[in-house]
């Protein structure tokens, strides 16, 4: 962490005093993203928790951003990058520095309503980095299930726990054969920064980073435990940190001893109703997932 603090610029592009809930990992995500992509960056945001700090006046973000709608953050990447290309050709661009284009979107907008838009931008390989802030439900509207809500999780629209599995969006993105796909967690900031830098420095093409984002409000855990819960998800093997460069997989963090999923599940109220069988089922899925990825 100290090495990271020394390496990243001191300049802040995300101010304090934003309207995110206490304990939200979104603030850390914005802050690190700002430091990596710098002043010459343009962000498009979809309706999500993270649209609030950037688009409710006064904005916490000090770089330009465009809020379009629930589903169209990837189209923002497309439009901005197309405009940059043509303006560059015509000599109408004021700066010669590269401009980094990125989008920030929740799991609901990325995996549900904006799936077609995301898939379209990825398939066209438009130039930009898409960051999915996955808090595993529609948190901004009050904790309704999304396709990224994990099996068994309580939400206000799955009162007895979700009966379906979590949609594996990173794998869907891998299937687009884009230059870069990665998963990340705010409990591993060095890993996130490295991945974002990779995406930034790869040049052209569509890059996708999926950030697991524990939500104290919706997952029912104390707000001081965000990083602990984030870390447990990785240590229990439920959230695997990996990257895929042009279809080549690489696991970027391997827990020394994989802890039982129960350690993670019992920290959160949303899993309070799970039985021993439920947990065993989830444990089996984790084993299968690791096997598949190894």
């Amino acid at each position, binding site marked *: 962490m100290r090495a990271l603090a020394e390496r990243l610029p001191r300049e802040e592009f995300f101010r304090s005093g934003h309207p995110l809930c206490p304990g939200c990992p979104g603030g850390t995500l914005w802050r690190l993203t700002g430091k990596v992509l710098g002043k010459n960056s*343009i962000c498009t945001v979809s309706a999500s928790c993270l649209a609030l700090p950037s*688009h409710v006046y006064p904005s916490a973000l000090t770089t*330009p951003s465009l809020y379009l709608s629930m589903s*169209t953050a990837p189209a923002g990447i497309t439009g901005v990058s197309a405009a940059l290309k*043509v303006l560059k050709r015509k000599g109408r661009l004021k700066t010669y520095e590269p401009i980094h284009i990125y989008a920030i979107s929740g799991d609901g907008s990325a995996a549900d309503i904006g799936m077609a838009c995301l898939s379209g931008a990825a398939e066209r390989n438009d130039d930009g980095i898409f960051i999915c802030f996955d808090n595993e439900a529609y948190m901004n509207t009050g904790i309704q299930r999304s396709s990224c809500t994990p099996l068994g999780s309580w939400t206000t629209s799955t009162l007895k726990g979700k009966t379906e599995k979590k949609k594996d969006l990173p794998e869907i993105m891998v299937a687009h054969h884009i230059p870069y796909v990665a998963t990340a967690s705010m409990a591993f900031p060095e890993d996130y920064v490295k991945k974002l830098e990779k995406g930034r420095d790869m040049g052209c093409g569509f890059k996708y980073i999926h950030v697991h984002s524990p939500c104290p409000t919706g997952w029912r855990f104390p707000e001081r435990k965000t990083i602990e819960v984030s870390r447990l998800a990785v240590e229990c093997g439920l959230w695997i940190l990996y990257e895929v460069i042009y279809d080549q997989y690489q696991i970027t963090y391997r827990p020394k001893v994989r802890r039982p999923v129960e350690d993670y599940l019992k920290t959160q109220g949303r899993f309070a109703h799970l039985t021993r069988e439920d947990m065993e089922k989830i444990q089996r899925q984790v084993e299968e997932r690791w096997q598949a990825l190894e």
Partner: protein
Amino acid sequence: MERGMVTGNYAAAYGVKYARAEVIPVYPITPQTSLMEKIIEFINNGELNAEFVPVESEHTAMAVAIAAEAMGARSFTASSAQGLVYMHEMLFVASGMRLPIVMCIVNRSIGAPNSLLGDLQDSLDIRDASWIQLYAENAQEIMDMVIQAYKIAEDKRVLLPVAICYEGIIISHCMEPVTFLDQQKVNQFLSDYCPDHVLLDPERPTHVQAILTDDAYYMEYKYQQQVAMENAKLVIQEVDQNFENIFGRRYGGLLEAFGTEDAEVVLLTLGSISSTARRVVRDLREKGILIGFVKLRSFRPFPREVLQSLLARLKGVAVIERDASIGSGGVIYTELSSALYMNEPKPKIINYIVGLGGREVTYEALKVLAEKTLWMVKTETTVRPIQWIGVRGLS
């Protein structure tokens, strides 16, 4: 200037080329598709320096146009019917952000049942999206209006998106003679798009499209759009005049009218029906019948004042339109009735709903409607104000 035969869609593509649009996201849909294909051809052979984006939906098409326009690039898109309806959400974003995007709406009926042919249901459905809507009746007018549209949209008094609407198949796919434009003259008429401030500029960071969580300034934003729409009434006429000064032809701005000074009855219509209705009125006038003609060109802004001054004195107005707001009447009829309501005296307004799903509206049919209206006025007969014409099984 060189003349040639082109379809309505190709005419629109030429307009886009002349206007030097820069980012063009379009999703294919009948009957719009040949417009998109022609643009791709222009880009491929180097006649147009633009980025074509093969988007995966119309919703994304408008989102891409918005993002590109916010970067300071001149954007264009086009759609029809279901595609336009699919795009609906983003239309409000474009106008609310005050982005001068131009779109061609190649009018087509909305399903169900599905029809590939044209009526005005699709563009009139987006009535409240704060887009300027101008209707064209032939290839030449489409070509000229795409260029005029950018000039109107980018005017600082306006800064609203503009839709150029024309009926699918009837206009989009019919070959008509046009006079091509001289690019030098177009450049003189419409300069490059260099907005005073680009919305997405790292040197001047702003957060575009604020989320207002309280009462904030939403109402003020909307009032400014209303003012811009009012300003557009003047700007549309100015631009038309300006166009005539350079190219030697004009279209009348908000509307085209003749014979209204001595007429008792006027046929008011828009789009492709105008050409036929104009002929009917001319022929009747030659026989000494006191009838006039109005072609509505601008639906948004709706030219209330001009219509009031032209029509208040008349005895009857026949509004002939290819659309219906089911449960009420024709959309133009409803708007016109509201515009003339406060006038005293005012004409009787009869609404003829015709040609839905692209059903043909012939010279003879329009002539019958004209004569019917004249007879009604002459005999002071009260008739049903809203009439569906040519429905099978109805007498």
